[in-house]
């Protein structure tokens, strides 16, 4: 499959680009919800518009009423989200949760997918336990209780957890914390007894929670996939989320770069446009190269995931790590090249820096994925 967009994908990119620039713009979305102290950090109206556009169902099968598209298409939407810093529950709901729900029972799919498609529902995932992404280790316990389970443990960095109607929780039904097997995924309703969440605002104005599961009782129908067999779905969900975050990161990098290159063409110092200075030209050209390459890595990984290729996991980590480095470079160069005004809240470049930082951390940072590249490669 060629590594550029086909006609359908190009059309989707055009409409996502237009939609996000018009409806999802920084001023009307990110700044608005931030400055009004919104408890969700995003707008439900916009989320419903996502539904009307069909974006919410990109990864939902046609049988379930979705578009039945793939990660390339989800990435197209995410890249535009990244460029415009549009706050939305797209990544957690339509990518992460949708991927897991695709493997769930008819009952769970019927319960949750319709709300997702219309943008009425918001979903979150609870994976991390501690400040770093370490999904290899899951200590949260789900013990048999009647014909259901009782969940106990703590989860951190649950993005949109407080706004979610349902949270997918990875818990251990057998084995010890570091075992690969014995993991089960649960669809936990927001109002489950024993579930409490402590919401914190993050640097990018998104809202995450620290979650405590204190004997949360669920019936067997809440299990996604098989009991003790959640690892495979978890991996699938994580890889979908990682490449989604990487696609959004490419958008962040491109947004920051475009804004900076524009600035280089406007700002004068020493009687010249600063974009005439060769040192800045070379740095901008280097950044451009890195952004293009990162984007290629992301599309490659998306295609491999869509093809269910064995090398997909490696390429997902390559892409997440590479984008992490590139987007980091883009926002650092962006702020530096803007000079003093880059440090002010009035200019948007700093917002790119903040979003990049949160996105870097989500589902594994550069270091986590570099380690994974080494391990998958066999060294």
């Amino acid at each position: 499959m060629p590594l550029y967009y086909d006609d359908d994908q190009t059309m989707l990119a055009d409409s996502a680009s237009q939609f996000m620039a018009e409806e999802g713009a920084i001023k009307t979305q990110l700044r608005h919800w931030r400055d009004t102290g919104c408890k969700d950090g995003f707008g439900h109206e916009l989320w419903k518009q996502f539904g009307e556009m069909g974006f919410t169902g990109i990864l939902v099968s046609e049988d379930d009423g979705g578009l039945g598209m793939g990660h390339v298409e989800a990435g197209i939407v995410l890249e535009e989200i990244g460029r415009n810093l549009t706050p939305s529950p797209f990544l957690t709901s339509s990518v992460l949760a949708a991927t897991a729900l695709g493997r769930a029972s008819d009952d769970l799919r019927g319960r949750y997918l319709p709300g997702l498609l219309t943008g009425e529902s918001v979903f979150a995932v609870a994976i991390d336990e501690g400040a770093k992404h370490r999904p290899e280790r899951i200590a949260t316990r789900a013990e048999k209780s009647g014909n259901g389970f009782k969940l106990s443990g703590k989860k951190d960095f649950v993005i949109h957890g407080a706004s979610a109607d349902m949270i997918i929780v990875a818990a251990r039904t057998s084995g010890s914390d570091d075992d690969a097997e014995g993991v089960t995924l649960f669809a936990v309703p927001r109002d489950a007894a024993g579930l409490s969440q402590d919401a914190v605002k993050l640097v990018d104005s998104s809202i995450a929670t620290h979650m405590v599961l204190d004997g949360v009782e669920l019936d067997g129908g809440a299990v996604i996939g098989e009991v003790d067999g959640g690892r495979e779905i978890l991996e699938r969900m994580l890889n979908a989320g990682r490449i989604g975050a990487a696609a959004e990161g490419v958008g962040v990098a491109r947004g920051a770069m475009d804004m900076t290159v524009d600035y280089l063409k406007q700002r004068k110092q020493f009687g010249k446009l600063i974009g005439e200075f060769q040192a800045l030209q070379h740095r901008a050209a280097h950044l451009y190269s890195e952004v293009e390459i990162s984007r290629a890595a992301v599309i490659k990984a998306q295609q491999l995931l869509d093809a269910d290729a064995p090398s997909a996991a490696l390429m997902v980590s390559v892409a997440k790590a590479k984008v992490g480095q590139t987007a980091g470079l883009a926002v650092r160069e962006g702020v530096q090249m803007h000079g003093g005004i880059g440090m002010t809240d009035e200019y948007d470049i700093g917002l790119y820096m903040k979003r990049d930082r949160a996105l870097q951390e989500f589902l594994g940072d550069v270091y986590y994925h570099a380690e994974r590249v080494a391990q998958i490669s066999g060294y």
Partner: protein
Amino acid sequence: MADLETFRSETRTWLEANCPEEMRQPVRDEEDVYWGGRNAKFKSEAQKSWFEACVAKGYTVPAWPKAYGGAGLEPAEAKILREEMARINARPPLSSFGIWMLGPALLKFGTEEQKVHYLGEIARGEIRWCQGYSEPGSGSDLVSMQTFGEDKGDHWVVNGQKIWTSYADEADWIFCLVRTDKADKYQGITFMLFDMATPGVSTKPILLISGNSPFCETFFDDVKVPKEQHVGEINRGWDVAKYLLGHEREMISGAGGGDRTSAIGVAMLRQAAKEGGDLDPMLRAELAMFDIDALAYGAMGEKFLDEIKVGKAHPAQPNMMKYVGTELNKRRHELMMSAGGSRSLEWDSEETSGGKPSRGWLRTKANSIEGGTSEVMLNVIAKRILDLPGA
């Protein structure tokens, strides 16, 4: 040497008697810093008594002559005082742009009368100063500044706008670059001093990405400045400004040690362990590479200060120190954010004391901009040290 040992033990005794326990802890936030000035309030009795003891002893500005409110310490003595204060974690009794910036300029360029008057006020923390250098159109190209002082015989009438004036909204006086001759770019600037309460001066805080507002835009609308209120000769203010910039770069470089030159690997491991985790092997590698650079830079900082003392440092060397020190500090905070993981992303949680990691990280991004950008530093090194041909 025996004298120095005596001085050390006397200092230790004096500190023991005069530095309250509460003042022997690291500064945690802006609240813990005492800036002085007309409207200053002490945060605590301890802060007040420590400040007053230092003023009486000349220890707000220990190396300044006694006549100007200092303690007249020799460099070796001043170093001992620093060491002894560091030993017990003593906080600076007074923080002030008057001490860091204007003072050195006055010591070098001021008249005797100015020194006695202004330095004394600074030493006693009576007047809080701010700096008026940059303008919206003049950042790296500072000398292109446009704020103009029209000559009206015994005074100037100043009009224009400054930006990045630190704490201008809380300052009593400003030291300020004003164009007094439009015909000569370099020799047409005067280094003026005036009261921020003068009619026509107004300020507007700038909200930064860190969520703080330490800087202002400052506007001058027909501000009257008496003719005697300038440092150095009229139209020769650029000499004073250049001198101060060198001084500022040295300060920002962190060459004096402290946080900016220290290794962080072990601290990050401890922090990870507190969260029940370990360091990613790859992050550990990056931390080691950072520690190497930080410890090497620490050695350079020591060497630089040693060389300055005996006049062996290249006059453009502060630019190199500023460049490397600030880039290093940005990298340090990037790594600290990585090691801190999602916890360090929190913006206003109690656990992070109101987002200290993320706000501190964002704050460092200004290091390589303020006081001369990294790009300007590299230009200066290329030209003044490597003698590369002008582009």
